[in-house]
């Protein structure tokens, strides 16, 4: 089927039609809704994987407790001082905001990259759920070094889980969304309960034992064979940039535009410190108690029995479904003649195939860092366009002002930033920070050239 870009753009606009106008005053949400949103969104199935991966990478106890504390603080401040101030001033979602800056063609490419990332993320969630579903069948669990499917049992369980997730996404996931909301408080306490329950098996019999055991048996500072060593800086930067696409990448403009004040960004602390602090620490403890096992199902079962296994299934599933639904929605833009169910089915097949490879789960830290890095430059573009261009005497939202379908400074900022940061001799966790400043600089220089040329031509 040929791809008609104009047709695609119209389709994209139609999908976002409802959100075209800024959020009206009466639709603004209270602080409680944001606290609940962040807490629910960031206590997910992947938390069962990330904590153990820090253990496998030889994080030390001090680096974990202090690195996560500071990294999460930086994430909260990013939501509060970068994302939310723009969100409450424009009240537009990222789609329409970016469309006015970059034009619909750039946005189309951004949408496709985003959709692919959603598929892989949902794939990781399906893998997480599969490790719990496979428990009663004595399925051979994937190990840290497994990159490819390791058994027929794994393949069958992943396909069944993928099939169910895809079917629910096709049928509409409203009921599942409600189920997810109901599960959230309980799920968080399963992390806490399971982590506490295995402490005696590691030698913790009183609070005074904890720090010694944490250093000697849990976060020992020694990576497992074949794993790179994580320092304080790895942990701090990972915690900060784990949701890079959401805060500095501005995807949460879509959510925070409903906030009454900028200070609501601080409520992201509910997600960061419950999910990305307590849950990561708890799942790390479970991994140490399971003698380095990293598959989420078995480690959750070790501490919490069937409640743990159910929590892993629920956590993975409830996150995979909306993610897959969003991916289907984005893919629908390149197949405008297809019905929604057919697109979601195609996205589900891609997602399930991705989930077959345990590498996606076992290399989740790298994938999460890459996901944020790929989308971050557009957040930098939004920031520079909103705050810096007017102060430099340049016009903001230039594509809208001039009616451009393609505004090259945003595209250049995106592509050049990624090319340059990929070339930088830094680990992936450290590329985003210089990349953000680079994207801002490229966009400003590009905008200056573009607008000066237009002025000269006029």
């Amino acid at each position, binding site marked *: 089927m040929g791809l008609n870009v104009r047709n695609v753009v119209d389709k994209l606009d139609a999908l976002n039609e409802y959100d075209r106008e800024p959020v009206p005053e009466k639709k603004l949400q209270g602080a409680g809704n944001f606290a609940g949103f962040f807490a629910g969104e960031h206590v997910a199935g992947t938390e069962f994987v990330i904590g153990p991966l820090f253990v496998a990478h030889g994080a030390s106890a001090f680096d974990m407790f202090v690195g996560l504390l500071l990294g999460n603080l930086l994430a909260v401040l990013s939501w509060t001082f970068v994302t939310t101030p723009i969100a409450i001033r424009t009240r537009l979602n990222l789609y329409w905001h970016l469309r006015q800056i970059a034009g619909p063609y750039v946005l189309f490419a951004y949408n496709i990259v985003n959709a692919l990332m959603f598929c892989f993320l949902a794939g990781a969630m399906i893998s997480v759920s599969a490790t719990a579903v496979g428990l009663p069948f004595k399925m051979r669990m994937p190990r840290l070094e497994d990159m490819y499917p390791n058994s027929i049992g794994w393949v069958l369980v992943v396909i069944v889980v993928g099939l169910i997730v895809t079917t629910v996404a096709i049928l509409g996931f409203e009921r599942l969304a*409600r189920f997810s*909301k*109901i*599960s959230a*408080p*309980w799920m968080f*306490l*399963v992390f*806490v*309960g*399971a*982590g*506490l*329950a*295995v*402490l*005696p*098996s590691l030698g*913790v*019999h009183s609070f005074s034992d904890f720090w010694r055991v944490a250093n000697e048996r849990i976060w020992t500072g020694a990576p497992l064979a074949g794993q790179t060593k994580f320092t304080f800086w790895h942990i701090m930067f990972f915690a900060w940039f784990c949701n890079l696409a959401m805060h500095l990448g501005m995807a949460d403009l879509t959510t925070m535009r409903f906030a009454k004040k900028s200070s609501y960004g601080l409520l992201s602390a509910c997600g960061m410190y419950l999910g990305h602090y307590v849950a990561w620490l708890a799942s790390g403890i479970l991994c140490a108690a399971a003698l380095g096992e990293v598959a989420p199902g078995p480690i959750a*079962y070790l*501490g*919490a*029995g*069937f*409640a*743990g296994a*159910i*929590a892993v299934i629920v956590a993975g599933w409830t996150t995979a479904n909306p993610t897959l639904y969003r991916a289907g929605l984005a893919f629908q833009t390149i197949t405008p003649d297809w019905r929604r169910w057919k697109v979601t089915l195609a996205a589900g097949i891609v997602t399930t195939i991705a989930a077959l490879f345990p590498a996606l789960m076992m290399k989740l830290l790298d994938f999460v860092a890459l996901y944020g890095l790929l989308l971050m430059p557009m957040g930098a573009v939004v920031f520079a366009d909103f705050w810096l261009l007017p102060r430099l005497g340049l016009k903001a939202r230039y594509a809208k002002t001039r009616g451009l379908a393609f505004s090259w400074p945003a595209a250049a900022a995106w592509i050049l930033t990624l090319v340059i940061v990929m070339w930088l001799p830094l680990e992936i966790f450290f590329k985003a920070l210089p990349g953000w400043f680079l994207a801002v600089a490229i966009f400003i220089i590009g905008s200056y050239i573009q607008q000066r040329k237009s002025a000269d031509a006029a």
Partner: protein
Amino acid sequence: MKTLSMIGSAAALGLTVVPALLVMSGAITLEANRSLMTAGAVLWFVATPFWMKKAG
């Protein structure tokens, strides 16, 4: 009914985290903790939909 289901949910959360503290103090075994946490899971999903639905 709503009050009863809220009490049930609170008890479920208690069953999810209090047994772990009892394991730490040596009062119960890890195996008992697993059973109690599973009972908490069942109770949570039976009780919570009644009042959380009403709370919107």
